[in-house]
């Protein structure tokens, strides 16, 4: 180990290990991030709605503040003829369905095969105690499933492979959600 910290060896290095500019760069990025951080997160308000969008178009706005557990599935439109379809929005290829608790617990054992057969690409999420959590998805990376539950305005769960966004929004500030056209 001694030779690793040999001074002569170190002097041979063309550049220095860390320059002043490096430290300024690091501190600059951190300062900028903390400014953004306080701007984004300090005014945390509990959300009122969970907005589900696909490809940038809003599919459904679900009221969050209910105490009861509600299970929802996002999948191919017109895939489920049963009466408990909560919404099929317009001519979108993707729709949001409401599952009963019985359906969820019945499905959860082999939910992937069942849901995949019926809905193709699917995401199942749970709204409970004012927060939304992704429970299951057949996307390749499962980042949305590992995401922590979201409850404050602005927080979101994104499933990039399925181009699905679940975003928490507040009551009055619905216009400030920044939908890019």
């Amino acid at each position, binding site marked *: 180990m001694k030779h690793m910290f040999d001074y002569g060896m170190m002097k041979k*290095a063309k*550049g220095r290990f860390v320059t002043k500019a490096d430290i300024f760069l*690091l501190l600059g*990025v951190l300062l900028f*991030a903390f400014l953004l951080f306080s701007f*984004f997160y300090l005014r945390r308000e509990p959300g009122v709605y969970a907005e589900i969008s696909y490809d940038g178009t809003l599919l459904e706005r679900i009221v969050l503040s209910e105490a009861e557990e509600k299970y929802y599935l996002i999948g191919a439109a017109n895939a489920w003829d049963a009466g408990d379809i909560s919404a099929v929005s317009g001519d979108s290829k993707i729709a949001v369905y409401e599952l009963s608790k019985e359906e969820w617990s019945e499905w959860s054992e082999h939910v992937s095969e069942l849901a995949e057969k019926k809905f193709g690409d699917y995401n199942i999420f749970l709204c409970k105690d004012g927060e939304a959590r992704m429970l299951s998805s057949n996307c390749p990376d499962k980042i949305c499933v590992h995401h922590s539950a979201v409850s404050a305005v602005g927080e979101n769960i994104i499933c990039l492979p399925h*181009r699905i966004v679940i975003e928490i929004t507040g009551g009055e500030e619905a216009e400030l959600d920044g939908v890019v056209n």
Partner: protein
Amino acid sequence: MTGKKMAWLGFLLALSMILSYIESILPFSVGIPGIKLGLPNLIVVLLLYLYGGREAFAVNFLRILLSGFLFGNLYSIIYALTGAVCSFCMMLLIKKIGCFSITGVSICGGVFHNIGQILVAMAVVETAAPAFYLPVLLIAGAFTGFLIGLVASRMLPYIS
């Protein structure tokens, strides 16, 4: 291209693929998407200093393609490539400025990899929602880039 250089590039490509693999099996999930160590970037910054932009880009491109097909899928390849291109261009730029060492170049790479991925995510879902992760990912990118850069700066004298 001399045989010696080709052997070195092949060796470093293999090494960066191993680092990709190690990163893919590390349980580094903290509930926030996009935070990772960026171990393969160690090889990219070293190559930038050892050989130059073309070699570093070629090895990085092949690394993403090969490890993507081995441990990932087509979707993750496209996603990783855009982040890599974004961070690579900025690293080249900041290396040209001259007052930054390999550590600063690595910080820049980490930060802009994350910025690139947020931009891709915004383009894919067509909303501004991914920008919500910008502050956290800036901090994470700066820190991991700094650590990788420190390691790279200490390795460089021994392999050049």
